[in-house]
């Protein structure tokens, strides 16, 4: 019997008992739907998180002064003044694959505009910083190299600061004061929203690095070249781990640290954060796979049960088919196709239902459902295999029937 004939025969048999076939599929439908929906919702949520992490930049290495090892007992960040603008220049010069290094200083202070004031975080930066951290300027102009060289009294405001000091009006050209220094607002930063940790990234003001050092009292007392941190932006496809190791060696050498001494700086690779997130979503995937396996198992047992009933009911039919010239293989294939068809149709219905549920859930949760084509194919493929596997025992029973006894069966 040809494969097409086998499929036709199997479909005919399933059509003969539509309600039973539908109920048998139900186990498969629910199992697959649950998996597809969970995968889609999970992928949507994960995509959301990954996008947040990507907004930080995954090809960035942050270097800060102070020791992570000494952590809580150190005497306060910045006192050691270990990291300098010269370190930044050395990294650009000596580490291959570096796209840019942006040194910065950071200070919490109050800015004043007219009779409004606001406590925020100030960054003293170079133009590279904007690029490395993917900041855009939506109104006015960014900080230029010239601003940095001159120590220009200019400032970029984050969206939150604009809202609180200027009530949403256009601040470009206005003046704000930092301590006693008046600064001209040259531009507004594009909004970034909250970071993955829930902090408002728009509550910042940026001034040229030199301006911050000169005009914030006490900042550059010990070493006029010092910076708080460096953002190292690597080129596309760079090996982040190797780059980190090279930067560490370079800085230890420049800081003349003895072998075995602690680093006097810390380093963080944002792809590490992404990897942690990835690991937790992998754990979720394992959970999903377990749920899928259990539901497919339950669906498969349901199919096996019905196929056993069906073989018993159709014993005379099997006997007749054998008498008319069916080989044992033909009978085996017929029942295998029946059970595989049950589970694959069930899986397809489950995929449709699962997508519907995912879209509904995601709509309520406020993020897009991501239908993963691999998950859909896998669900259909695996359930076909489950159908064949659980159909095997009933089909073998059918194929091993003795034609005479089968024909005589009541």
């Amino acid at each position: 019997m040809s494969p097409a004939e086998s499929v036709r025969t199997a479909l005919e048999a399933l059509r003969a008992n539509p309600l039973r076939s539908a109920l048998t599929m139900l186990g498969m439908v629910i199992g697959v739907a649950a998996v597809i929906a969970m995968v889609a919702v999970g992928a949507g949520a994960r995509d959301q998180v990954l996008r947040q992490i990507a907004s930080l930049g995954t090809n960035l290495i942050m270097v800060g002064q102070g020791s992570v090892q000494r952590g809580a007992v150190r005497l306060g960040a910045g006192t050691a003044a270990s990291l300098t603008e010269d370190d930044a220049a050395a990294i650009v010069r000596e580490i291959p694959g570096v796209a840019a290094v942006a040194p910065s200083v950071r200070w919490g202070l109050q800015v004043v505009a007219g009779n409004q004031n606001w406590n925020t975080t100030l960054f003293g930066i170079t133009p590279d910083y904007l690029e490395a951290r993917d900041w855009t300027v939506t109104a006015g102009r960014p900080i230029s190299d010239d601003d940095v060289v001159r120590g220009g009294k200019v400032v970029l405001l984050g969206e939150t600061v604009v809202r609180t000091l200027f009530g949403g009006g256009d601040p470009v050209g206005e003046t704000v004061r930092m301590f006693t220094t008046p600064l001209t607002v040259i531009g507004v930063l594009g909004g970034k929203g909250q970071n993955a940790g829930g902090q408002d990234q728009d509550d910042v003001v940026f001034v040229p690095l030199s301006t911050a050092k000169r005009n914030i009292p006490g900042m550059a007392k010990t070493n006029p070249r010092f910076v708080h941190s460096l953002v190292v932006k690597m080129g596309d496809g760079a090996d982040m781990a190797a780059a980190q190791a090279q930067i560490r060696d370079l800085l230890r050498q420049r800081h003349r640290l003895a072998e075995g001494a602690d680093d006097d700086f810390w380093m963080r690779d944002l792809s590490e954060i992404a990897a942690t997130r990835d690991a937790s979503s992998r754990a979720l995937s394992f959970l999903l796979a377990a749920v899928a396996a259990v539901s497919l198992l339950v669906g498969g047992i349901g199919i096996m049960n019905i196929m056993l009933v069906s073989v018993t009911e159709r014993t005379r039919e099997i006997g007749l088919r054998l008498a008319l010239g069916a080989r044992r293989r033909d009978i085996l294939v017929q029942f295998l196709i029946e059970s595989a068809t049950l589970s694959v149709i069930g899986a397809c219905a489950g995929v449709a239902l699962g997508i519907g549920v995912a879209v509904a859930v995601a709509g309520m949760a406020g993020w897009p459902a991501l239908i993963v084509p691999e998950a859909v194919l896998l669900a259909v493929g695996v359930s076909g295999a489950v159908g064949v596997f659980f159909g095997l025992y009933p089909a073998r029973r059918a194929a091993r029937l003795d034609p005479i006894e089968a024909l005589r069966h009541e």
Partner: protein
Amino acid sequence: MLRPNRRGGAVAASAFPSDLGGGEPLIVVRDLRRTYAVGPDRVAALAGVSVTVERGAFIAVMGPSGSGKSTFMNVLGCLDRPDGGEYRLDGEDVGHADPDSLAAVRNRKIGFVFQSFHLLPRLTARANVELPMVYGGIPRAERVRRAAAALEAVGLGDRWHHRPAQLSGGQQQRVAIARALVNRPLLLLADEPTGALDSRTTREIMELLRDLNRGGLTIVLVTHEAEVAAYAGRVLTFRDGRLAGDAPPADAAGAAVPG
């Protein structure tokens, strides 16, 4: 090449090659044995049967209940394998063949008619008739054409789309006969084909079988009724798994009545 039958249909005479296949008889059986183990006992359903059936013969098999008639038919039909003796069908040793070749022999050379019809209830008459061709690997278009012709030949050309439940017993048995003939077998085996039919329908079915036999088809049928056996040219009488009589129907009827 077509000979008319009594119902106005036509049976393709060339479909049943009575005079082909060389000189060897269609069926040659030597010392055939089949023993069943029932608990500790051994029941010899066939205890050494030897018989030869010529091509084109019409044979009736009679005998008391339990005498081994059905067992004999099952072996002839390659549904069962003997555990002793020889069976050659159409010059081929089928007594020792493997299950797959026996399936092929059943499909190509043998047609079965059963007392209880054995039609698949969810299929139409035509789809039932198509079944042996499905397993014979015949393309769909040809199957439809041949099934329609076979139903026409048994006088049911207009009922091809009926399901078995929508047909009378006699009509169902005609569908079964069409199914048995559609692969143009050499041998038609019928175990009590009229056992479930009334006497008028029995007569119609037997006339159909007689016409088929006249067209060249070899028929072996089991019956308990002398009127049915009367259509045959030769009656084999079984007793306790052995052949107790082999004679034309008139003599057999006489022999069956003791005294």
